[in-house]
């Protein structure tokens, strides 16, 4: 197992054993800021010199991918899971959107094995976060409900939310700086990346352990949804990536993005837009099941599926 995954396992076990380990407040925020910037810089540098217009149809495709996932998840949760409409819509939005931590683990998994991937995957990450939120809000309120949605606010969130700002900002810097232009900051943003990710995953392990203790209150349906939905999404992601002609590394990453579920941006947006949805339920599924599933089993599995697909 990769060493960074060992850090996650350590945090998880320490949390489950009720260790007194607690990370200083603000550390989580600082580490994720670093990871987002570093991912953005790398992606932007990869895209430097490349024309950006041809990317637009690709971006439309992956945004559509997230939207389709959200609809499918909503239908499953409403009909099979018998969830109330707001809950079904909220959980679906979590699974339609993406998790940056899961993406970072997959990037490291690939780079440890010297498997390359297309730089635009970082742009995919940036654009895939928000559309499922919009869909989820519409689904929660019923399409024709006539209730006013603050679209201005939502668009603001789409481009100026914290994570997206850092990704886009990092990409812009990397793009302008171009190859070689980031050399002076390489010791911080690239050499430290994996170690910082390890610390971040330690904290994730502690966070996940707390969600796990809340899992018992959730029905069995939700638990299996937390594993099956990522698998289904990964298949959709692979199909989409295949249509876009991605490499094995790119396919693996897009499958991971599709399979990953948001636990930062979506909960924050849903809390205000759909206040009646139960937040504990969605976080238990996303953090308690799907995140560890993806980190421990999903990524290697998606890679094998990608290899199979690319070989076919």
């Amino acid at each position, binding site marked *: 197992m990769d060493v960074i995954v060992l850090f996650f396992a350590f945090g998880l076990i320490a949390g489950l054993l009720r260790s007194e380990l607690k990370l200083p407040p603000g550390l989580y925020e600082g580490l994720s800021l670093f990871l987002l910037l570093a991912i953005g810089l790398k992606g932007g540098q990869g895209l430097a010199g490349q024309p950006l217009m041809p990317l637009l149809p690709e971006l439309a495709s992956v945004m559509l991918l997230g939207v389709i996932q959200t609809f499918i998840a909503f239908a499953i949760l409403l009909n099979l899971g018998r969830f109330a409409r707001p809950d079904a819509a909220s959980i679906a939005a979590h699974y339609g959107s993406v998790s940056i931590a899961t993406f970072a683990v997959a990037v490291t998994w690939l780079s440890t094995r010297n498997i390359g991937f297309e730089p635009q995957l970082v742009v995919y990450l940036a654009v895939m976060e928000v559309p499922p939120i919009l869909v989820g809000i519409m689904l929660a309120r019923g399409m024709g409900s006539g209730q006013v949605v603050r679209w201005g606010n939502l668009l603001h969130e789409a481009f100026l939310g914290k994570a997206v700002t850092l990704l886009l900002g990092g990409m812009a810097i990397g793009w302008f700086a171009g190859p070689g232009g980031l050399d002076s900051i390489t010791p911080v943003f690239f050499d430290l990346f994996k170690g910082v990710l390890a610390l971040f995953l330690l904290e994730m392990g502690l966070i996940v352990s707390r969600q796990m203790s809340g899992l018992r209150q959730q029905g069995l349906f939700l638990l299996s949804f937390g594993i099956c939905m990522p698998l289904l999404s990964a298949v959709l992601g692979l199909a989409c990536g295949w249509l876009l002609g991605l490499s094995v590394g790119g396919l693996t990453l897009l499958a991971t993005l599709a399979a990953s579920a948001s636990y930062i941006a979506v*909960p924050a947006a849903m809390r205000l837009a759909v206040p009646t949805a139960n937040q504990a339920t969605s976080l238990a599924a996303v953090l308690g099941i799907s995140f560890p599933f993806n980190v421990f089993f999903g990524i290697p599995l998606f890679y094998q599926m990608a290899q199979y697909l690319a070989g076919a």
Partner: protein
Amino acid sequence: MSINTGTRTLLTVITEAALEATLVRILSEQGVRGYSVSEVRGRGSRGYRDGVLAESANIRLEAVCSRAVAESAITLLRERYYDDFGMVAFMQDVDVLRPDKF
């Protein structure tokens, strides 16, 4: 009372950090002219909220204002947020200098 003070109401609201912007907007619409905010963690009917993830962060907002403003604000908060959000709100009388400021 030996010095020139007046009585105003201190309104304290403890709630989810996600509501901060909304809360501030509502209070100012009701006529609150100033407020102070700090971060707290705590426990209530919705379990423990420790603020490690933004989802579980609480804030404590306090505002000195007139009784009428405090009451209309707190009534509005109850109507709109008490059902769906973790929220505790209470009012106290306080003695202030410069009562016209509030």
